[in-house]
């Protein structure tokens, strides 16, 4: 999904994430009507079914990498159950994202931004959530690292059998996705209605 700043990308993500309710319209996720759920139910839904990667500052700086990756399993037992052995699953994901074992017990703020984004991806993927929301996760990375990151992300999303909703303003990336939507077009369509 593309869109210039102010086109409502973050609002859309918050809607999908169940953090805010739409003023009108409906959001349906795997047959479940999100808009009909109460606050607590939406919280549970998010914890169970969504993995989130931000643009930057994804990690709790005072926690080690493993602790950061395990975080979602603390808030959702369903996700912890799907992950199986949470610690082992975290280690596997970290390894799969190309992070060497000697980094795993370092504080999250002691590694590079590129490495932090990969930890964030591993965290979003733990417990195989149905949907990964990625809000411009590559914008803080340089060009080569951006592509490497995407490759790793794609392979792991595929392995987890999750869907990926990827927000970016970088149209070059579009061809690598199954489907690309321009939020500006959507907004125009809406204003015509």
């Amino acid at each position: 999904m593309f869109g210039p700043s102010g086109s409502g990308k973050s609002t859309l993500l918050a809607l999908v994430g169940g953090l805010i309710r739409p003023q009108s319209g409906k959001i349906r996720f795997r047959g479940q009507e999100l808009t009909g759920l109460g606050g607590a139910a939406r919280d549970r839904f998010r914890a169970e079914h969504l993995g989130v990667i931000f643009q930057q500052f994804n990690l709790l700086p005072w926690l080690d990498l493993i602790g950061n990756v395990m975080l979602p399993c603390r808030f959702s037992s369903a996700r912890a159950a799907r992950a199986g052995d949470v610690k082992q699953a975290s280690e596997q994901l970290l390894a799969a994202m190309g992070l060497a074992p000697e980094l795993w017990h370092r504080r999250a703020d002691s590694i590079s931004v590129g490495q932090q984004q990969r930890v964030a991806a591993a965290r979003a993927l733990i417990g195989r959530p149905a949907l990964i929301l990625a809000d411009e996760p590559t914008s803080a990375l340089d060009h080569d690292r951006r592509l490497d990151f995407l490759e790793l992300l794609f392979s792991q999303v595929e392995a987890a059998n999750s869907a990926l909703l990827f927000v970016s303003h970088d149209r070059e990336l579009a061809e690598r996705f199954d489907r690309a939507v321009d939020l500006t077009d959507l907004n125009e369509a809406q204003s015509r209605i």
Partner: protein
Amino acid sequence: MNLLGLAWRSLLNRRFAVVLTVCTIALSIGLLVLVEQLRSEVRQGFYRSVSGVDLIVGSRTAPVQLLLYSVFGIGDATNDISWETYTQLKALPEVDWAIPMALGDSHRGYRVLGIDRSFFDHYRFGDSETLEFEAGEEFADLFDVVIGAQVARQLGYDLGDQIVLAHGSGNVSLQGHDEHPFTITGILAPTGTPVDQQLYVSLQAHRAIHIGWERGVQMPGSAIDPDVARARADELRPDAVTAIFLGLTARAAVFGLQRRVNEYRAEALSGIMPGITLQQLWRITGLAEQVLRVVAWLVVVTGLLGMLTVLLATLGERRREMAILRANGARPWQISGLLVFEAGLIAAAGIAGGVVLAIVVQLTAAPWLLTHFGLHVGLSWPAAWQLGVLGLIFIAGLGVGVIPAAMAYRRTLADGMQVRT
């Protein structure tokens, strides 16, 4: 690691600010506990010192003044009472025992009391305890002296040591009773009362060393030769005493006797009941205590406000942390709970630290109070009601945590899933 584990790690990450906050609260709680503890302990110490005396008689003066100079060595007597009055009081049927005392001398800052031997048998302190000798015994010779436990310890005296008394009660006295050295024959066991801070000689000895001092200074060559004094010991008795401790056969008689003492015709006397006079003293010091209490409470409030300030200040920089937690499935109430938990932990640590601080200060201050005032300040746990108050302060601490928690709750709802920095 559960949610509390996360809270703990987050706290550790901010340990500097957290430790400072805990210290602030610990200081305020320490002050509060200390004011209460010392207040009750000091009162306890005063009561201990006079528990066995039913009536104290001195020349007409304010009751509190009489109590302070006769028992605690604070201030001086303005007048003496005649020996005849003493003998008459002693002969009264309701009087079980009477201890006359003559003040006015000192030894290196410690008071010297001329007393009757009955003092060692009848004086009671604390829980009706009697005086015991740690070493030696009461005086045999005219120029023998018995010293209190603290005097022996502070000045390093032992049995058989010879000491010279000074005229007057000052720490530095130019005039001494150099011609009449005294021999230490007894050291009293510690009592935790002013008894420990005093030296005791017989009334005869008190009289003997003051022969020739009738004008306030010693007439040259007028001092009595020690051996002559010993030979005449039986004739020696003071013309006047400073105060008399009375023990009655029945405590109920004390009110009648007090009235008779106060209405005594031959000379102007004051008779006081130590317990009631202490009450009067507390009424005088009560205002100061209230002020101290109010100050201590204000400091506690300051401590809690300090914690609120720190929590609110860190709220901004922790916005990111909260958004991350929220995006990873933390419920708003869990995030608020983290803050309340944090406030509770800081408050609890501060309260515990404050109690420890108060105990440490008590332990440190106790020897000083004992040395300077002869007050035995025991170490005591906060009373049940104080623990209740501390519990309430803890709850107030949690309440303080609710403020940033509510703000965080609203903010996490408003921020949604964006990470703002």
